[in-house]
């Protein structure tokens, strides 16, 4: 992280006093014991005590806090529930941590327009809970949905197991209210669709807290599908499973979810939840179809024919809702299940073109041997999003370093085969230094200049996403080579 600014740390008492004028009482947290709660997020390998924690409860307070920090030249790290797996909410020693937990109200549910207006500290699952009585739900379902907040989902453009059919956060929100670092409040979108000209809402989504602080979100809610059924399929090789996934999609079927697990993940999950996963297979696929019963039965038949044509050795369609949920319980418990067989695990998040899956898994096996660390794979097979879990023991010398180096090699491999560093967890601090494997200097400079348009002093969540910090004046400099035409013979008309 950037070296803390000693001058800011020295002025801590002044900053605290100024913040207390804005957020009264317990909203400004100073004591070390209470700040300790905020020292890390879901990426627990990184810890840092923030300078001060501020918990505003109104948009006016957020605006005043940001204005105040801009005047003091103090950095700000926004935080929702702190479930980021990439260190997006990792505090700074010379920055305030802006906790949005008090923004926890659902403001409006509008079934006629199929949307809900909520504050950013409302949890993802709470939105679905609030509308399920009327037969609706909020589609993106990250596995942390019981705890993660919608504000954090907007910052990270969170996904979940149903993204292939229903999209990520960016495809499911209609509007936000946000505050810029200079304290300006901007409303984008609303209950209507699409922006005119620049889609600022689109670029805010997934900006990892670097562009603005979200203070209200309007989400799209969808009617629940009538039924859902799952098919559990075992394969003798991962190649068979990967080809089967491609065949399902090539047949024109977009399942609601299509998840794959490799042998280590299957065994860990089965030992944990005992749902009857086949253990003599190299890959397990869960294909979920939803819709009216007529559609689900019809597609289930088609998928069964496809899997039989791909050497499937165990095929089980769910017979009822309880069995469908049982199929999922193993997949959903895969992370804690791996946690049982290893003292620590490190979860990666690359996306690859699915056609390269078998090759990537095989090369990952080679890396596993080289780093002497086991790896289990769970995979959003439908959209190519891979979650390798690297097993290690933090108490053994150099295992943390080996796990991190192994993880970085996996992500480099994802990029090498035409994929990307992160499918849904974000770059944060974790993958910041790998950005250069995907983007060159010009790519990164164009992104960082965009940040300058929102936050010219670079005070909002610095040290995340970008491997190097540049001053906006330096980034904005235009190198003009005046003179002759480089190609005088270019076609003109």
């Amino acid at each position, binding site marked *: 992280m950037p070296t803390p600014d000693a001058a800011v740390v020295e002025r801590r008492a002044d900053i605290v006093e100024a913040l207390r004028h804005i957020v009264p009482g317990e909203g400004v947290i100073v004591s070390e014991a209470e700040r300790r709660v905020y020292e890390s997020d879901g990426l627990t390998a990184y810890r840092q005590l923030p300078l001060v924690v501020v918990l505003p409860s109104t948009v006016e307070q957020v605006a005043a806090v940001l204005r105040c920090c801009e005047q003091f030249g103090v950095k700000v790290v926004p935080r929702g529930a702190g479930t980021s797996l990439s260190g997006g909410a990792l505090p700074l020693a010379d920055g305030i941590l802006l906790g949005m937990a008090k923004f926890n109200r659902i403001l409006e549910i509008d079934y006629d327009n199929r949307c809900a207006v909520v504050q950013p500290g409302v949890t993802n699952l709470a939105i679905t809970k609030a509308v399920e009585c009327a037969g609706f739900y909020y589609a993106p379902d990250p596995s942390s949905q019981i705890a993660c907040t919608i504000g954090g989902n907007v910052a990270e453009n969170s996904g979940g197991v149903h993204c292939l059919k229903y999209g990520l956060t960016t495809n499911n929100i209609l509007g936000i209210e946000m505050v810029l670092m200079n304290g300006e409040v*901007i409303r984008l979108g609303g209950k*209507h669709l699409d922006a005119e*000209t*620049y889609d600022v809402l*689109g670029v805010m989504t997934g900006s990892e807290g670097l562009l603005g602080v979200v203070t209200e979100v309007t989400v799209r809610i969808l009617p629940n599908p009538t039924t859902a059924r799952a098919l559990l399929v075992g394969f003798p090789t991962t190649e068979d499973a990967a080809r089967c996934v491609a065949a399902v999609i090539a047949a024109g079927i977009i399942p609601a979810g299509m998840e794959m697990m490799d042998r280590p993940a299957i065994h860990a999950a089965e030992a944990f939840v005992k749902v009857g996963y086949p253990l003599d297979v190299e890959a397990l696929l869960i294909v979920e179809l939803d819709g009216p019963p007529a559609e689900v039965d019809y597609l289930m038949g088609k998928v069964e024919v496809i899997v039989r044509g791909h050497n499937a050795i165990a095929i089980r369609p769910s017979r009822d809702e309880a069995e469908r949920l049982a199929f999922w319980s193993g997949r959903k418990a895969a992370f804690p299940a791996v946690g049982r067989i290893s003292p620590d695990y490190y979860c990666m998040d690359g996306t690859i073109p699915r056609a390269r899956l078998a090759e990537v898994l095989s090369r990952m096996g080679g890396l596993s041997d080289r780093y002497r660390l086991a790896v289990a794979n769970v995979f959003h097979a439908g959209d190519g999003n891979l979650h390798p879990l690297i097993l290690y023991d933090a108490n053994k010398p150099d295992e943390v370093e080996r796990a991190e180096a192994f993880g970085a090699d996996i992500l480099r491999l994802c990029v090498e085969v035409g*994929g990307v560093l992160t499918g849904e967890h974000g770059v944060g601090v974790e993958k910041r230094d790998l950005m250069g494997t995907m983007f060159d200097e010009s790519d990164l400079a*164009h992104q960082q200049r965009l940040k300058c348009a929102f936050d010219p002093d670079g005070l909002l969540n610095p040290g995340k996403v970008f491997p190097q910090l540049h001053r906006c004046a330096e980034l904005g400099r235009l190198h003009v080579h005046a*003179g002759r035409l480089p190609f005088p013979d270019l076609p*003109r008309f």
Partner: protein
Amino acid sequence: MSGFAPADLSELRDIVAEAVAAGESLEVVAGGSKRGLGRPLQLPRSLDLSRLAGIRDYQPSELVLTAAAATPIAEIEATLAAAGQMLAFEPPDWGSLLGLPATAAGRRTLGGVLACNLSGPRRIKAGAARDHFLGFRGVSGRGEVFKAGGKVVKNVTGYDLSKLMAGSYGTLAALEEITIKVLPQPEAVSTVMLCGLDAAAAVRRLSRALGSPHEVSGAVYIPASSAAALTSLSGVSGVAALRLEGPLPSVIFRRERLLAELGSDCGATSLDDESSIAFWRAIRDVLPLAGFGDRAIWRVSVAPSRGAELGEAIARRLDVSWYLDWGGGLVWAAIAGAEDGGAAVIRAAVRGADGRGTGHATLIKGSPELRRSVPVFEPQPPPLAALASRIKESFDPRRILNPGRTVEGG
């Protein structure tokens, strides 16, 4: 007008870099079918991207297609159709609406559709053009090559600059290569038609249908006055139409349910596959308002429940033909006889009686004089307008690419 027509990325970069050095602005075009959108430009030179054409990578089972930016939409749609896939956002062909010669339609390009973020009736279910825009490579107004996004369907690495390019009308970068998400074509399609409804009753039914689990992928209301332009509707008044797509048994099941749930107290009927495809193509291309000569055409996005009231409010004050798409959330209006093309009345209606209504009204068709004298796009509140101007500055500090296309002086 003189211009440049680069054959590849490096020529494109050199041309823009040279324009930056000379401080000379460029009008970015390819097929030219959308030249009449936005504020009129009078720039000395054009940057014609049409030689940057051709599909570069397409694997149906990856659901991803990469093509040069000026690849014709027709070529992409034909290639996708051969593999049973499609552009789910239904890029519209506004050739008839804008009064272009028939040859112009064939010149629509992928880059043009995305730069204007144009989507058809399936927007409500499948998302807009921007939702399918996965990544790109191009040259910014700084004369520098850059890329963003990726070539896989799920990616959150770095800022989502594709979203910013969608709807930017070529004011930030000249795109050279584009990667989009593609989806399977539905096996079957059917349309439930509910007849004899006034606007308010129709929108209530559209809303019920969209709030049902029946996965409606198109929801329009056409008042009697606009129905004549659609041959399948002649003689019918006040029609609400709902499209159902998917596997055949599912479409049949949902069609019967919708007819039972919504059609019992009004004249209800349904269209088969072929008629449905023709009907929704006409809606996609805004044919109900085509052929109105010199009327000003507006496209207004509001909360769906406000569509009926908005259409009727405009009709009380102006000579208008109008209809609703997107379940009521998209009002299309053709205005005759108003000096400002109806801008004041329409924009006041969007803000609503309490001044707090959200949404935006875009002038899609109007004379160059009209498009110069009234804001083509909804005026933005000062902090947002200032932010937009800083975004333009960050990609194009010398205002080389399409300056003034979206806002005066922008």
